[in-house]
């Protein structure tokens, strides 16, 4: 019964929040629902580790280790950002940035939109992870776009509308390509028994008989899916919506977009990789993935180096990491997929934490341009500054933090698999991003003593920051046994071994 409840709980929370009249009710609904979702996701993960893949509703929902991992990470980010959002949105309301233009929506209506859309976004991400039918998965991915377009345009400024427009149009085109890919996949599977029934597009059915898929069809389908879900994941050259969307959305939503939604787009890609790789073998599929992955990594380097705005810096960073994960998928094998799954886990924790820190800085100084912040962040916000710096060190792959382990594993896999050029470029691009991020964030955090007043205590946000920061430190030294088992079996599902 866990499977349907897992995405119905946040869905119900979205509807209830929309109907709620007072801010306290919306906050309570969100916090309660995300806490329950997290418990359910942990329960699902435990069940999958114990019993293997589970099904519900007659095979409509299906969860193996990959689904359980993605769902668990989504629920974690959802819970932490829900706690953070309480403080963040209260401050937004106090600062009067929610607007109150005569014709525009009232601040209260805006608050309601945010509290209703965030759980709906999480619900659709969870449905992506749990849907067995590839068509339903596509519908759920489109639903994430619909929910998040309004979050990106939330503040109603000219720049937010520009970002929302780009996001809707580019996302719409990407999803139309993904749908074309889904159609062609169905065509490739027409020879399988039961292809004309509702279960004909179920991943569990297709993966078991991937060798019998039509090869020409799968080739075309994989190109379309890579372009389509790649747009959603923001890999180059379809990444242009990403810096705009991440820097215009409310920070709690940006944290979800940059970690959980990236995972969900990659999840779609991973499912099709498994089918296409089993059908077409080595060569075409891995090469295409490595090409796009390295392109994303390389393209983000100059933008990280010259960036003037820290939320856009984080967005280009996410493009870099999307590239890392796509490259890892392309390298494949037992080692590459293990690196991918570890990296996905670590990146989700570190990147959402970074966005939460950036939100504190943005709200305190009312700007996200490095140049306009005259003092070191750590002077007036010691906790935020320290965690910001720590998370930056973690995300650029500084040992002892765990992203070093996963990236090291991926580079190892590249050389072991004979992808020498890819391995060398991977390290080079990694060094470029390392330099840019450390330089910018180091200056921002460790600047001189300035005239700003120290920030007041912020219990909601500080506790969210501390919890996620503690998790980031903890996993650097100790990965719990069941979680490692889940990650290992997720890697096995993808590698097909």
């Amino acid at each position, binding site marked *: 019964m866990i499977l349907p409840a897992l995405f119905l709980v946040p869905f119900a929370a979205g509807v209830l929040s929309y109907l709620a009249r007072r801010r306290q009710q919306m906050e309570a609904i969100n916090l309660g629902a995300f806490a329950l979702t997290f418990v359910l996701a942990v329960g699902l993960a435990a069940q999958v580790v114990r019993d293997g893949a589970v099904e519900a509703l007659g095979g409509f929902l299906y969860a193996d280790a990959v689904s359980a991992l993605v769902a668990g990470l989504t629920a974690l980010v959802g819970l932490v950002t829900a706690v953070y959002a309480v403080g963040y949105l209260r401050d937004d309301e106090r600062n009067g940035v929610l607007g109150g233009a005569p*014709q525009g929506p009232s601040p209260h209506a805006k608050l309601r939109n945010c509290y209703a859309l965030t759980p709906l976004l999480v619900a659709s991400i969870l449905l992506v992870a749990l849907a067995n*039918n590839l*068509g*339903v998965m*596509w*519908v759920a991915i*489109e*639903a994430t776009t*619909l929910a998040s*377009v*309004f979050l990106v*345009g939330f503040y*109603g*400024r*000219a*720049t937010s*509308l*520009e*970002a*929302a*427009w*780009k996001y*809707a*149009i580019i996302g*719409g*085109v990407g999803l*139309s390509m993904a*749908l*074309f890919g*889904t*159609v*062609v996949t*169905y*065509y490739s599977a*027409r020879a399988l028994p039961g292809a004309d*029934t*509702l279960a*004909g*597009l179920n991943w569990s059915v297709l993966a078991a008989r991937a060798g019998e898929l039509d090869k*020409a*069809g799968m080739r*075309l389908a994989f190109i379309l899916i890579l372009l389509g879900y790649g747009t959603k994941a923001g890999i180059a050259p379809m990444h242009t919506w990403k*810096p*705009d969307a991440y*820097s*215009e959305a409310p920070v709690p939503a940006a944290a979800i977009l940059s970690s959980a939604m990236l995972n969900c787009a990659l999840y779609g890609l991973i499912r099709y990789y498994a089918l296409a790789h089993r059908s077409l073998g080595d060569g075409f599929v891995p090469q295409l993935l490595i090409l796009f992955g390295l392109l994303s990594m390389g393209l983000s380097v100059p*933008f990280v180096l*010259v*960036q*003037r*705005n820290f939320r*856009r810096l984080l967005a280009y960073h996410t493009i870099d990491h999307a590239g890392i994960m796509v490259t890892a998928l392309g390298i494949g094998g037992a080692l590459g997929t293990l690196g991918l799954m570890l990296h996905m886990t670590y990146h989700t924790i570190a990147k959402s934490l970074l966005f939460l820190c950036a939100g504190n800085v943005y709200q305190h100084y009312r700007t996200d341009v490095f140049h306009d912040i005259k003092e070191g962040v750590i002077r007036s916000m010691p906790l935020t500054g320290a965690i910001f710096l720590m998370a930056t060190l973690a995300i650029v792959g500084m040992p002892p933090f765990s992203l070093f382990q996963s990236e090291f594993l991926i580079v190892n896999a590249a050389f072991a698999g004979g992808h020498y050029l890819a391995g060398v470029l991977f390290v080079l691009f990694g060094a470029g991003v390392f330099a840019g991020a450390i330089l910018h964030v180091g200056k921002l955090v460790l600047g001189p003593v300035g005239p700003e007043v120290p920030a007041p205590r912020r219990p909601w946000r500080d506790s969210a920051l501390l919890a996620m920061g503690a998790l980031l430190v903890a996993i650097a030294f100790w990965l719990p046994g069941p979680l490692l088992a889940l990650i290992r079996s997720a890697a096995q599902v993808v590698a097909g071994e």
Partner: protein
Amino acid sequence: MTLSPDPQFGDKLINLMAALVLVLQIAMAGHRWLVTNIRIFGVQPFLLASIAATIGWFNHAPHLYFAAILTLALKGIVVPRLLEQVVQRVGIRQEIEPLVNQPLSAIVSGGLTLLGYVVAESFHRPDAGGAPESLGHNTLAVAVSLFLIGFFMMINRRKAVTQVLALLSLENGLFLAAISLTYGMPLVVELGVFFDVLVAVMVLGVLVHRIREAFDSMDVSKLDQLRG
């Protein structure tokens, strides 16, 4: 008059209607008035619905009738009206002002059609033209061409409404591919597709309206503050 269930006849009928859809798409790419564009777009779903119904008739796949009715209701009637309302409400200029002028647009569309035929080459099976289950397989080339021309229209146009229109006509190509390649995908998926088209139009409609408020213009080329 009784319709003879001769697959050859069905195949010809489908090819004819698919060709008409393609002609309309090229006409859209080459036409200069916005309202005419919306009306041409409104005709396409009628042909697509007829193709779906024909395939459904010859293959005894009744769920395709359902898809045909949905297409007709949503894309043939609701969506064009919605778009015309948006156009009237925000009072935008009627001329489309593409980046590439109209005659050249028509030629580019012709070139893209050629490309569509090249892409669909590996799926082309002329020998299977008579069997009922392969009805319409040869319209894949048309579907790919519709898709590509839709892309071209999106790049070529600057106004927000025309971009929405191009996105929707691109999805017409998808629909044709879905019904011709797979004689209808499983029903859950069809429902999802139409639901999403409808909601997407509402989202974009709201956005178009708010962009107008914020910029006093419908020109998306003015959306250039976010860079780097």
